[in-house]
């Protein structure tokens, strides 16, 4: 059984507000979650759900109101633990007077690497994220996508065991997104643990061994994308062709495109529906299980959650 890379226990973050800071808004409420070693874990939720708050708490950029967390068995207050962590902030911004090579060299200096090792790693990382030709340009001249690449490079520069990425696909074009996906998969092949937050659900479905869904500061579900979706998925879709007209009652529920119809029925009603359609003169083209996407599961949660609005307000604060 793999060990735990990240353990989060009852993590809570409240922000005081008002003139005397007497009122409080809860951004994260009693989060309990584990990320296993070697897995790619997706942390998904709408804007303001508490994803970045959780990551910032793990990185000690903000401090919890209650609860604790451990990374690789060590408390997050241990600064030396950061040798084993790579972190890409959301919408990263770096020292714009530095070039990409200088920035990476600067960060590498905190990891006690020799000058030769630093140089070799900086070159390798720039090549990996496709910035070797822009290595001598100051970051103030970089596009958002290029900054995201520099951010990725600095996150994996020191060969960390755990890589935490906050919205890594944000601001990237389709090619850039695919490159980031490739890097995440490569990290997984190398045995690294990757935790990333996103609200692009197709990326999470494609990359993650497990996902955690957070809405309104509360964790609503953790599991493999398929498992989470199966909990909410029932139904079959029948695609059929029907020329002419028919009075079959099921036709009123079908969606028509020319002579083709698409009809969704419950699994237990499938055979009765097929019999009825065939009796009406329809030709069955295909029958497929309707598998709800992670997006539908996620949307259902968000819509069912009345706290979504307030969570967005907290983020806006």
């Amino acid at each position, binding site marked *: 059984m793999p060990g735990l890379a990240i353990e989060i226990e009852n993590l809570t973050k409240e922000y005081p507000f008002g003139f005397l800071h007497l009122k409080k808004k809860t951004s994260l409420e009693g989060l309990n979650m584990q990320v296993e070693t070697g897995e790619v874990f997706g942390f998904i939720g709408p804007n303001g759900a508490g994803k970045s708050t959780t990551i910032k708490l793990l*990185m000690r*950029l903000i401090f919890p109101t209650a609860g604790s967390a451990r990374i690789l068995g060590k408390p997050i207050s241990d600064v030396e633990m950061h040798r084993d962590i790579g972190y890409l*902030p959301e919408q990263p*911004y770096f020292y714009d007077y530095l070039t990409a090579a200088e920035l990476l060299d600067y*960060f590498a200096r905190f990891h006690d690497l020799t000058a030769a090792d630093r140089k070799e790693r900086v070159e390798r990382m720039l090549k990996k994220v496709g910035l070797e030709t822009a290595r001598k340009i100051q970051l103030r001249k970089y596009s958002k996508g290029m900054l995201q690449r520099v951010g990725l490079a600095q996150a994996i520069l020191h060969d960390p065991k755990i890589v935490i990425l906050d919205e890594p696909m944000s601001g990237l074009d389709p090619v850039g997104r695919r490159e980031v996906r490739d890097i995440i998969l490569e990290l997984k092949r190398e045995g690294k643990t990757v935790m990333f937050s996103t609200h692009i659900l197709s990326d999470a479905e494609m990359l993650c061994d497990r996902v955690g869904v957070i809405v309104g500061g509360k964790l609503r579900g953790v599991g493999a994308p398929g498992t989470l979706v199966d909990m909410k998925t029932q139904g079959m879709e029948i695609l059929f062709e029907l020329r002419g007209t028919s009075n079959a009652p099921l036709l009123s529920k079908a969606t028509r495109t020319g002579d083709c119809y698409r009809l969704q029925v419950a699994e237990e009603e499938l055979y009765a529906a097929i019999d009825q359609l065939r009796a009406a003169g329809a030709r069955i083209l295909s029958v497929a299980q309707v598998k709800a996407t992670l997006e539908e599961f996620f949307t259902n949660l968000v819509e069912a959650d009345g706290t979504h609005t307030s969570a967005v307000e907290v983020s806006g604060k």
Partner: protein
Amino acid sequence: MRRAGVVALNTFREAVRDRVLYNLVFFALLMMAAAVAVGQISIGIEQTVIVSLGLSAISLIGLLISVFIGVALVSKEMDKRTLHALLANPVRRWEFLLGKFAGLVLTLAVNTAAMALGLLLVMIYVKHSLERSDAVVLVAVYFILLKLALIVALALLFSCFTTPLLAILFTVGFYIVGLYVQELRNLPVEVMSPAMTAFTKGLSYLLPNFENFNVMAMAAHGRAVPGALILQNTVYTVVYCTIVLTAAAAVFSRRNLK
């Protein structure tokens, strides 16, 4: 400590690339203009005028840099969120603060040294020679640098818990009050209650004493500065900066970044 050094060198690089040292051009032009003017209007008091003007300019330029850049050292990193990626590395928050402080003091030292060199060159031009007693100018410049280090430490402290604008106001306020600490200490006791006297006296010891750093008059007239005062000011700066930076680290280590 090594990590603080890495931050310090990057802070120095930032100052250079942000063209902070361009002020030296202004200083050079001012000194050249002064040298020409002094030759025409002053008879026998060239040294006094040149040294007073030069030291005032060094002090004022340094003051502007230490207040405005000192306050921005931390607040800019928090606002632009450049700190997020940095603190994800094995860097303690106090190491970051110490590095930023050392980086700006290094910048000020280079800047001040360049201006002092310019001042000495103008003195040579005006007097056609330098005497042993002129070394007091270097002592005055050293005292200015000590004063600037204190101001940077204060600016850092204030920027750790308040907005940049308020931090600038607090820093400038402390500097102005610090120039009159001796007066605060010697307020006439007959017009105040004993409690008030004790309060103002206590306050005068808490506030930074910038008065002791001002030896401009002695330098202008070529009078030597006692070695004891040099030692006293050095120790005072080290101790006061240590206390202020410790307080800044205590505040900053618990601060939530946005």
